[in-house]
């Protein structure tokens, strides 16, 4: 078990961690009886630093510890690393944005209690990245939670003039009874294999959009 060289272990850990690692972190990779000296770890880090001097990435010491990062000179090319053409969106995204649309201004806590399930920080971050929601204010209660609301861009995306174009919730329920069927039947007719597995393309349904207004 312990035959792997210290250097390989430390190197792999730095690449796998996804965050900077301190020397303590690195020492803790080993069971107590086999923990290397901190000086040995330091020596390995110095070696790694040299090993990567001429490569596309470099080992760096930052506030949180050591981490590998790409060399800044390479940014012009790395910029072109294509992000997913059409990111996956989940049910959770839809539900969250729908709740915010109808209930704004609303805190994350309140969204969670309506959904009956927790809403990740990442999700709120993504919706803000899409520029669909924004923080309107902070509620004056302990923790000063942020109050979220939808943006102009959100309305534009769904081709709505303003929020009151959203169907009133009560009607929505009845209306959906029929619309969902329509929507489902349309989905059925879309039988060709998906172009890309990472995409979830729900067909834009003009029928539904029109009758919503």
């Amino acid at each position: 078990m312990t035959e792997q060289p210290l250097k390989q272990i430390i190197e792999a850990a730095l690449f796998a961690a996804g965050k900077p690692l301190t020397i303590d972190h690195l020492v803790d990779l080993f069971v107590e009886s086999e923990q290397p000296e901190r000086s040995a770890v330091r020596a390995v880090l110095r070696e790694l630093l040299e090993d990567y001097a001429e490569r596309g990435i470099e080992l760096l010491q930052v506030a949180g510890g050591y981490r590998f990062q790409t060399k800044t000179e390479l940014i012009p090319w790395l910029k072109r690393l294509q992000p997913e053409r059409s990111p996956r969106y989940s049910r959770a995204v839809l539900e969250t944005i729908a709740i915010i649309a109808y209930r704004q201004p609303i805190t994350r806590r309140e969204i969670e209690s309506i959904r009956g399930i927790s809403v990740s920080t990442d999700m709120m971050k993504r919706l803000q990245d899409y520029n669909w929601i924004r923080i309107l204010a902070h509620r004056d209660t302990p923790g000063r939670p942020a109050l979220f609301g939808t943006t102009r861009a959100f309305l534009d995306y769904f081709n709505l003039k303003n929020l009151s174009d959203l169907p009133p919730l009560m009607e929505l329920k009845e209306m959906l009874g029929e619309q969902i069927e329509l929507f489902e039947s349309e989905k059925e007719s879309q039988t060709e294999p998906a172009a890309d597995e990472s995409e979830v393309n729900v067909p834009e349904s003009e029928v539904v959009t029109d009758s919503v207004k």
Partner: protein
Amino acid sequence: MNNDIENNHSEVSADKTQIEESTQVEMSTEVALPQVIVQGAPLESLPTDLYVPPDALQVFLESFEGPLDLLLYLIQRQNLDILNIPIADITHQYLQYVDLMQEFNLDLAAEYLLMAAILMEIKSRLLLPSTQENEQESDPRAQLVQQLREYAQYKQAAQDLDALPRMERDIFLAVVERPNIPKEIIVPDISWSAMLEAMQDVMERASLFTSHQIMREPLSVRERMSFILEQLKITQTIDFMSFFTLEEGRAGVVVTLLAILELAKESLIQIVQPQPFEMIQVVSLE
């Protein structure tokens, strides 16, 4: 094939086979599937000699992935030739297990009962005296054997798959930080109808949480609340009156008023009048 039918006729010869194989039975149980050891004794002795803490037994019974899995277990446990299953024997044992499952009120899938019926049907057909007619027919076990073989293959394949080195368990992706590269944000393609569908789901769920009267509040008040907060982000203090516009008519006034009151209630804004008769101000509490 005919020998088999003989076997099934006579209990004695079936027992004999069992005894002959008993040494091997021991061996195969060691590697056989879900193994539960109760007080040092392996659980395969179960159906005949039943004294085990019910919990352990339940775990054992629940670990079968269906009737084929159970049959396979019985066959492997006894090191039987898959092509030559002594149906009477296996049926008997199978039914014992099914009875046990029922006894423990396990959620017994209909498939288990169906398999019992199939086994009994095969058994009865094997018991029929061989006439010319059924001589021409294929062995009634053939289909079952085929099914068992196929299932066994995929059961094994599942184990093999599980043994492959995989991400998050045996392998980690090597990732490095990309400094200063602005993240390109791509908005997902979401249709309006998908949105509405999601909302309906939420509403159904939310109706379970009675504290949320999400049906009641008129939307326009909510929108106005957002609008007011937005304005207050730009200017911290705004004249109360300037939120009202004539064009919106009475309905607009009501909506705005409700929005302001609601915001005040939620302590998001403050309504102040610096001096008597002066303009009322709406102040952000941010």
